[in-house]
């Protein structure tokens, strides 16, 4: 009797497996002898047309936005077999192994995509989509913060994640839920490496502090940093102290904006566990922010603006908030003697009627990639924010030339960074919908300062970015994965052990009250 039931059960399982297998069987490759030609490019999403792919990028899966009963896609280059995919579903999922081989064998070549659609009994072929495979790889990991586009972060899920660009694997570096709904914010790497990493976090329960990951060991630093930049030696970390205030607009498409009531720069000497500053980078009549080191460690670049309001002024926003324009400046520094030179202005915001923010220097030292917007200090909140490159080799008149990159959209571009070989840039853009920041990758020519059409970070599910209601901010490229992640870091956050810092620099140096509520402004 039991055997009989067992047999029935076995047959049922077999039938189920059969049905599932039938449902998932691959479509046979159709023989397309004749087709009508459609003299336009097919609409695909994400837009993977006319872009340059790194040879080590994960398959750029896409959705065909054309109505059809059946889809047939051929992906090919000069060498090696074509990748052919036939599907009833417009989502085209490229086999990773075949994609990897195709890109690897065809560096510096064209990558073409032919799309055929079948409606009723006839096939149509669209114009071939042409892309390029670059010769130089991109750093294999990208780190970003993911959260809701909230205005004041309160209890939603936020985390810093590390994504393998050669596949789709993503691991959480630090999530807020691991320290009682805390917030995680700026993450900074030294020379695109993970030997020296700084991650800031905020928590009602565990304080507002920073995590230092040095040589694979994580420690808590007993103070908070806002925007940070590693000196290439890894011995020093410069940071800004910002008195941030948020406000809202009555009519604009971007509802929120923020400004610094005051800000200054300081630096943390890792070995001495000391925070210092200099009047040259913390002037009372100027606001200094967004520090970044030149790759040779001789210059600290930063944005600097005159103080347009008095410290006592409590109005939010202050009267002249929309007149505030930051300059791109730099100051020389000698790490051996810990001495600062004089502040030089590279681009004066007032002169070009723009605010110059977030400088990032290419690892070859030639270019400064900056955001320029109409006013203010938060490029992610300024729809006018565009990416510009500044040639750091001055012309014969000692002037620094700059140009707007062709990769901009009519909404905000921000939080950019270079790959270690200066050949790739990654940045956050709101171009898809003007609210959610998404990571875009663009090929960059270090000789000319030209950036090529950017492409959206490939995902296994090509509809991922159509669906997710989270923003991706602060994308940064790194050469190897972060040594301590997840619970390893969370334990450090929760632990009472921390590096005590000699702190001659406090918020009082700014002459303003403590940030209070402004702590929780979402700095996407």
């Amino acid at each position: 009797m039991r055997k009989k039931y067992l047999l029935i059960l076995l047959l049922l399982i077999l039938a189920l497996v059969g049905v599932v297998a039938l449902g998932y069987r691959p479509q046979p490759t159709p023989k397309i002898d004749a087709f009508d030609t459609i003299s336009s490019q097919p609409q695909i999403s994400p837009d993977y047309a006319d872009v340059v792919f790194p040879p080590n990028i994960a398959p750029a899966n896409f959705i065909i936005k054309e109505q059809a009963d059946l889809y047939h896609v051929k992906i090919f280059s000069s060498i090696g077999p074509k990748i052919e995919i036939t599907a009833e579903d417009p989502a085209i999922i490229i086999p990773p192994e075949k994609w990897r081989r195709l890109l690897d064998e065809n560096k510096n070549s064209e990558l073409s995509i032919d799309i055929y659609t079948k409606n009723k009994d006839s096939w149509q072929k669209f114009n071939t989509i042409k892309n390029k495979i670059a010769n130089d790889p991109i750093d294999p990991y990208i780190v970003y913060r993911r959260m809701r586009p909230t205005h004041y972060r309160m209890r939603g899920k936020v985390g810093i994640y590390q994504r393998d660009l050669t596949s789709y694997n993503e691991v959480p570096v630090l999530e807020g839920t691991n320290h009682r709904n805390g917030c995680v914010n700026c993450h900074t790497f030294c020379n695109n490496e993970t030997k020296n990493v700084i991650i800031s976090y905020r928590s009602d329960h565990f304080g507002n502090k920073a995590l230092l990951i040095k040589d694979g060991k994580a420690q808590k630093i007993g103070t908070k940093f806002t925007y940070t930049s590693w000196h290439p030696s890894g011995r020093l970390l410069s940071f800004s102290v910002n008195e941030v205030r948020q406000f809202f607009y009555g009519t604009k498409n971007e509802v929120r904006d923020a400004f610094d009531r005051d800000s200054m720069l300081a630096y943390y000497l890792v070995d001495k566990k000391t925070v210092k500053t200099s009047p040259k980078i913390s002037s009372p009549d100027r606001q200094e922010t967004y520090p970044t080191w030149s790759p040779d460690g001789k210059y600290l670049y930063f944005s600097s603006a005159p103080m347009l309001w008095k410290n006592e002024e409590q109005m939010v926003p202050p009267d002249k908030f929309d007149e505030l324009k930051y300059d791109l400046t730099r100051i020389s520094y000698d790490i051996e003697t810990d001495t600062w030179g004089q502040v030089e202005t590279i681009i004066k915001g007032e002169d070009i009627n723009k605010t110059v923010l977030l400088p990032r220097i290419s690892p070859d030292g030639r270019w400064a990639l900056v955001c320029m917007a109409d006013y203010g200090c938060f490029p992610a909140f300024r729809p006018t924010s565009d990416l510009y490159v500044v040639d750091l080799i001055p012309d014969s008149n000692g002037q620094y030339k700059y140009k707007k990159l062709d990769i901009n959209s009519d909404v905000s571009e921000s939080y950019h960074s270079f790959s270690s070989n200066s050949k790739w840039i990654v940045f956050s853009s709101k171009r898809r919908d003007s609210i959610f920041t998404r990571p875009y990758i663009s090929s960059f020519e270090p000789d000319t300062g030209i950036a090529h059409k950017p492409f959206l970070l490939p995902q296994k599910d090509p509809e991922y970015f159509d669906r997710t209601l989270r923003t991706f901010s602060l994308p940064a490229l790194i050469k190897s994965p972060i040594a301590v992640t997840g619970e390893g870091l969370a334990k450090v956050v929760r632990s009472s052990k921390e590096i005590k810092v000699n702190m001659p620099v406090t918020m009082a140096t700014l002459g303003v009250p403590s940030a209070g509520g402004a702590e929780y402004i979402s700095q996407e």
Partner: protein
Amino acid sequence: MENQPQKQLYKYLLRNVAIFSAIWLYLWFIVDIKLIYHGAGRILDFPCFFKTSQFFFSHLSYPAGLLEYANAFVSQMFYFSPLGAAAITIVVWLSAVFIRNILTKVDLTRLSFLRFLPALIAVVTFSQYTYRFPFFIVMMVVLAFVSLYFSLKIKNLFLDLMVLLLLSVFLYVIAGPAILVFALLVLFYRLLNSYNFSVTIIFVVSALLIPYLIGVICFKGSLNNVYTELMPFSWKVTTIEPKPMSLVWMYILYFWLPAIIAGYYIYILVNNKLSNAAAEKKHFPKFAALKAKTVLLFKRSPVLKPILQIAFGLILFAGVYFFVFDSSRKILFQVDYYLAQRNWKKVISSAERFPTGSYYIVNSLNQALYHQGRLGEDMFAFPQHPFALFLSEKSHISIHWPKISLLMDLGFVNYVEHEVAESLEKFGSRPYLLKNMIISLLAKRNYATANAYLNQLSKTIFEHKWADDYIERLKTDPDLKNDQRIQSLRKNMPSYNHGFSVFPINDVLKGLLQKNPENKMAFEYLMTWYLLSGRIEKVVARFDIMNTLGYEKLPKYYQQAYLLHTMAMGQKASLKGYKIDPAVLKTSREAIGYFNMLRMGDEKALDTLSEKYSDTYIFYFISLPSIMQK
């Protein structure tokens, strides 16, 4: 004789059907579960559910995710009160079945009436308009596992241990740290039955290690969560619970059964030490006699027992209703629910029942009164405060939902977007919030982002039709020119841009009127703002606009403000063609008379004013200094 067990079974079923039907009806009609689904911007942890594989798979990445997924799905049934009430009833009924089985297995059948405890706790917690449903589901699953293990009675030690470990791992993956409750119950069961001690010790140690091994090592979870997820002491629960005492019920739900079995074990131990059962009889002869008498009484009168049981049940229900049921909170939820439904009459009738003054209630009430054309006629029949109009006090920064509704009605779309963004962060992707976000984005022609939210809403179980309809409409009418609501918002949205951090009531209302002088709601709110802040000269100065807005007569409170203004200024301002209603004049004169008496030092005049004229603007105006001090 043969029919006796069957009869017993029928009796048992009948009793249970009666009790659980009563619970179902109570949850349906008295609690009205749909109010908890709506949440009123007060229930922070109500789950969202989306019909996508991604949503399902995202729940597989952590222990207890499966149960959270199931809970999210079942909780959607709360959308319809009868369905939601049925879901809760089924969960507590199943729990009761498992508890009965467990109590029988540990020889505590006489305590089987305690199986109704989860049901009672459910009735209590839902009567307080809190959302504790996940805990009930967790406990139901734990009880099912315990019940299953107790029923197996495995003799082979190795097999016994393997089954225990397998059940523990399984339970941890499904229900998370509630495995600890399972471990406690199994521990006492094994001790009671003198099962192999080594196996017991190995099992207990394993149960303690499993959260770490599976949670931290396999699922890469945080130590902070792997031992606390879905437990009442989890930081996720305690940080959002304003009343820690209300969690006591959850502690009882989780630990009463282990406590009882542990107590029984200790009792047995102590009893064994006393070494004879006779001692028991000697100790409790009175109780034994009482028990015998009771049994005899029930045997003589078979209807007595069910009557007593029903009476006890009714007393219990009445007790819960009178002592635990939070009727004020229900009204708060109702007001917000009907506000979201734009059922203005029900907003007003619910608000009228609210026992004390509440800014929150008054804010919604004013909006409903406006839509019923009664704002200028009846608003002072309710306790008013300038802060209530826009919930503009500092402490109101965390209140979003009524503001969303009000600002959307007024046409101040950007601030709606801000409030919704805040709410989405706090409450998750609740359909009510998604709809408001979509409307504001569509009004601003931000179609790409609206589509992202529409896609999400279209994956909900009960509220997808609204999204599907918009998705279709956008195909045929891409700029939504035929959508009256969107067109009206676009007509009203202010065009003058300004930055602000504190909600600037005056500027916003003036900005709205500047954009659309026919925005009647903005006008009435501006006038109401003037009335509430005591600026009667501004009320009088705006009578001229009322002709263009089509007012046939001056609302009562504007007339009273005019009369107060005349009295204060000693001369009449222009009525711009409007007339003072004789009845209003009479009431106002009387009230002003008492006001003058009060000014002369007659304290009794105040009593008369508050008794007879409390619904007049004059009384509000007189009370304004004391109102502002509150």
